[in-house]
């Protein structure tokens, strides 16, 4: 039941799109569930250390069931507990984790799965890091048979891409968070700091610089560029910026410079 070449690129593309835009997980889960002849699907995160069990995205799962799972049943999910012993990237069926006979004797089955008409599952372990476990889970109801090997093959195709997509997403989020941390540090300073592009355009600035420019007292912003009240000072500033930008792009040797800018009221 490996997806056809026509379907596969689209399915894989949806994974990378969803990693960047979480609202796209649901249509992806619907598609992958239908390909695997599942009746519902979910992206489930377990933080065993924090005792947190979160259904991050789902298709065809009652929101009340999701809530109950997060509040209590996630902590007694026998499938998740057993899957935690498997390596990341592993794909397994519910029957390989826990025999139907054993499952039927559990509170998780009797009070949760049976009530929500879930009888079989197949799980792809996207991430496993210490006590953190993320799984792509596809379920079948009691009128269906257990997942066959071919259905597991679909997940085997997709899990490496989900891992890659998660990694890309986290790498980007980390870089973004790092930029925001640095910006926060710069915002705490009383000194105005302005970052300029190669054409002298303002790329970003800290809070103090923003406040300074808003006052329009000597230094102000015009068409995205720094302008001073006195034309002569503007020319000096522009040439200093241009020289520094040249150095920044490896085409100049100017180390920049310092100058005084006359306030608007003291012209």
């Amino acid at each position, binding site marked *: 039941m490996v997806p056809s*070449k026509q379907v596969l*690129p689209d399915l894989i593309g949806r994974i990378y799109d969803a990693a960047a835009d979480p609202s796209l997980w649901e249509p992806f889960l619907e598609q992958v569930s239908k390909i695997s002849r599942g009746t519902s699907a979910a992206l489930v995160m377990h933080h065993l250390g924090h005792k947190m069990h979160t259904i991050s995205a789902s298709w065809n799962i009652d929101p009340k069931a999701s809530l109950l799972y997060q509040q209590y049943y996630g902590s007694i999910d026998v499938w998740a507990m057993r899957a935690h012993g498997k390596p990341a990237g592993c794909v397994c069926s519910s029957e390989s984790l826990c025999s139907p006979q054993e499952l039927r004797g559990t509170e998780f089955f009797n009070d949760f799965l049976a009530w929500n008409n879930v009888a079989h599952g197949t799980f792809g372990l996207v991430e496993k890091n210490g006590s953190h476990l993320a799984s792509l889970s596809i379920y079948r109801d009691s009128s269906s048979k257990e997942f066959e090997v071919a259905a597991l093959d679909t997940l085997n195709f997709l899990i490496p891409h989900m891992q890659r997509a998660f990694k*890309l997403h986290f790498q980007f989020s980390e870089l973004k*968070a790092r930029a925001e*941390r*640095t910006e926060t*540090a*710069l915002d705490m300073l009383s000194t105005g700091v302005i970052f300029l592009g190669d054409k002298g355009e303002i790329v970003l600035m800290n809070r103090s610089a923003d406040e300074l420019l808003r006052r329009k007292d000597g230094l102000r912003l015009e068409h995205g560029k720094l302008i001073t009240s006195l034309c002569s000072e503007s020319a000096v500033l522009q040439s200093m910026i241009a020289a520094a930008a040249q150095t920044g792009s490896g085409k100049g040797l100017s180390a920049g410079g310092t100058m005084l800018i006359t306030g608007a009221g003291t012209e």
Partner: protein
Amino acid sequence: MISAKALSNLLYTLYSAPPRPAAWNDFLRDLCTQANLSGAAILEHDVEREHHNVQYSYGSDSEWAGLYKEYYGQIDEYKERFLRTQEGVFALGDELCPPSKMKVTEFYNDFLQKYDIRLYGAIATVNRPNHLEHISLYSSWKNKRRGAHARELGALLFPHLKNALDLRRKFVDIAAVNSSLMAGLDLLPQGIILIGQAGIIAVNRAAEQILRVHDGLLIVGNHLAADIPSESHRLQNLIAKVNQTAWLDLSSLSEVTLVSRRSAAPLQVLVVPVVDFPADAGRPGRAIVLINDPQKQVRAPANVFRTLFGLTPAESRVAMLLADGYAPGEIAETVGVSRNTLKSQLASIYRKTETRRQSQLVRLLLRMAVLTAGRS
């Protein structure tokens, strides 16, 4: 025909590339293998500025990319015709420019022939006025081997190529923002350390200098520590507490502690939580550590002060001594002038700097320190 497995592998390699430039070559290599072609490259053209860049390439002498950027990109006959195609349409090289026409051009005779590059086909991922980005697949003029399924592959891969190259741009942009911001932090006289979930994630130049001397403040296993165990414990507790604050989203709580040094006055350390992060960063452990070294002379250098305010060298020297806390009598003695001369020099300094007394002048010098801290 490419198998589903091979296609999946190719896409996996492609999506490994955005944050890791070296992986683009792996992708181009795998693509060439699948398409049975000898080379591939991702090129970018800024038509207005005449910038023609081979971003990544596989299968040819590495020299060609430099020459293409330097000159041959400007006379690339394929590119001129390719500009008229649409994004996502696979164009065959021989259809863009028939070999008979190509062989009479300088581009062919001096460049393509030398490196045995024959454009098999190309697909544009960006084709906007002045900005063209495309992936090109190459065969050989000598070898009759033709590409297999390249058009089919191009169609299957196009949306992914576009996605992956967009992602690459995002990674490049955010990396550029990060390096600019760090350059900003490096200009500051205070030590600044950014703490992430797994410990230290960035250290500015001033903090680096403090840490380098191994006196008081240390890095142990990517975490901040102090020489004295009780201070180390307190510092780590503060960071943990502030991290917890960030996690609980309680804003504007900060904590201060002192870190003793063997050879100087204690460092003043302020730990501040960082809040309001996007939910998708979603991890606890965010703090900024600011370090103030009270021993550090943080004032603008004499030459900068002199240039900005038009002071004479003598006035500049007097101003620096004032900033260092010397009394007028001591200054007169040190520079060897009479009290009256010093008085007139001071009047001139105050007039030129628009200050009225020593404390204002010192404050001005300290405020200016930040303009020069990163350069000293």
